[in-house]
């Protein structure tokens, strides 16, 4: 799906984002945007700052400089739950579920945003409360089914095998009704068949019209699901284009392979890129 022809609204706009930790500059200057409805892949060598960028966008870290806005509203300075209320939901790089609760309850917790009952209504057990509970429970089953975990609804989050825990994470994030979903290495640690099923789920997510910003190391997966890919290295974006463009981009290749590529090239061709 080419992004050139149709009118593309920018959903997420990140401008000159910089992140400093004490003396360490984790992100130098990041400028990019995500269009409505697209799947944007964010790749880059380890330590390039991808998760830091996620943390900044979703309110877990405060940007040192720069602006971040979603559908026109600034996200800087907002708390993570406020950002979630705007429809921006993320997953975490290290497996993050509610370990002590069942998979079903995990998704129920994710549905928090969709419910409106307040404390007084709950305490007085107004009929609207019970009705909403039933709707939510049905929805939770739906979502578990969507990621293929409906058979595991009763299992404790911490008892699920690794691949299923990662699926549960996505289910919980989907439950929060995101319009922009930030996935932090969703298939890391998954075996090839799990990764393939996940790619199918990604297709379904995209059909729902959810915009996705995806960080991943698994190249086959990223190139397979993304409309567009941006590459982060040493704190700045060094490339932005379609998956095939990125795969051929020399800057990107150098970023991943480093000096060895240059030395190999200069060995056979001499001159220019000796210093990289």
């Amino acid at each position: 799906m080419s992004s050139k022809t149709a009118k593309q609204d920018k959903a997420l706009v990140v401008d000159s984002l910089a992140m400093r930790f004490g003396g360490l500059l984790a992100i130098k200057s990041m400028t990019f945007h995500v269009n409505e409805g697209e799947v944007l892949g964010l790749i880059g060598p380890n330590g390039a700052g991808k998760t830091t960028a996620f943390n900044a966008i979703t309110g877990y870290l405060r940007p040192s400089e720069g602006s971040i806005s979603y559908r026109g509203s600034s996200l800087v300075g907002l708390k993570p739950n406020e950002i979630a209320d705007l429809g921006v939901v993320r997953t975490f790089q290290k497996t993050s579920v509610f370990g002590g609760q069942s998979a079903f309850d995990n998704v129920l917790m994710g549905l928090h945003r969709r419910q409106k009952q307040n404390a007084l209504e709950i305490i007085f057990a107004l009929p609207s409360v019970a009705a909403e509970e039933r709707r939510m429970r049905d929805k939770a089953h739906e979502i578990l089914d969507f990621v293929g975990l409906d058979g595991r609804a009763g299992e404790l989050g911490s008892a699920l095998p690794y691949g299923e825990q990662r699926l549960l994470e996505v289910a919980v994030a989907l439950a929060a009704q995101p319009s922009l979903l930030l996935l932090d290495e969703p298939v890391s640690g998954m075996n090839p068949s799990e990764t393939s099923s996940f790619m199918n789920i990604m297709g379904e997510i995209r059909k729902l019209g959810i915009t996705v910003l995806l960080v991943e190391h698994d190249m086959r997966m990223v190139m397979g699901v993304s409309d567009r890919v941006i590459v982060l290295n040493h704190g700045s974006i060094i490339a932005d284009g379609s998956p095939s463009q990125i795969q051929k981009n020399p800057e990107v290749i150098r970023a991943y392979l480093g000096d060895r590529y240059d030395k190999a090239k200069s060995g056979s061709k001499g001159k220019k890129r000796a210093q990289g």
Partner: protein
Amino acid sequence: MNRALEIAFVVFLASVPFWLGNLYYLHILVTTGIFIIAAMSLNLLLGYTGQLSLGHVAFFGIGAYTSALVSLGFDLSITENYTFVLEPKPVWFAFLCGIVLAAICGWLIGRISFKVRGAYFVIVTISFAEVVRLVALNWIDLTEGPMALNNIPPFTFSIPGLWELTFYKKEPNYWLVLALCVVSFVIIRRLVNSRAGRAMIALRENEPLATSVGVDVTKYLVLATIVSAGMAGAAGGLYTHYVRIVDPDVFLFIYTVTMVIMVITGGKGTLAGPIVGGLIFGILPEVLREFAAPEVQWMIYGVLMILIVYFLPAGIIPALSQWWQRRSQSHEQVTQGAAE
């Protein structure tokens, strides 16, 4: 099926005064019931929301003192010329005042807990309770300090002009406490099984994940502390109009400890935990009192606590339900085996 069991259980409890015979035992049940309400309130904060609040007795005591003072009436010289005078108010009104003031203090603590986490929060809550105790001890003008507030009126229910019932005897107090136990239990159960309760549990289990799906940390911490504190204040109000004397000892740290013991040994984060813990540690002292000096009693508690924590770390209720699950699973296996 479960609902019927519960109702039957409550009816059974309500029948106790008719056949127990011994007024002293009834008295123990009343005080135990009051403690159970306090323990349930602490469980909401400590068990479900995961907040290490060790100043809970402050809410209990604030509820007790406020209810006592409002029902007795008091005068307070604010400046040389002006004295604030409050006429004695009906007991039910004083009782509500106690709940409200305790809830307001809960709100304050809830707001603070958001800024101050973990072990520091423990210390803040302990300090808060100590400050309140010292104020109660030293502000003699208002609280009579160690001389205690006495002759506190008991609960009274009346239809003006027609009928009035004053709870001088133990039985009506028992039923009142039982009724409030049931009400408290229902409130907590409804909260816990709802969106609000799930938010609190989510905060306890995995706060970053909870916020990522839109759970507002401050809002639910504050909600938990307000409900928890108000309920403890209600327990305090019940205490004050039953025992009819209140002194600063009601704020002693040892009572917070007792509540914590009840919650954790019973099973924190479970609905029945505080009830079981409350029954054990409410009744045990009285049983031991017969044949052991107070110090020995407390030593037995200390040791008992350590043992329960070692062998049943999640508490009694979770251990029981695990045992029950394993029994029914092996039963299934046996019947399946037999069928094949």
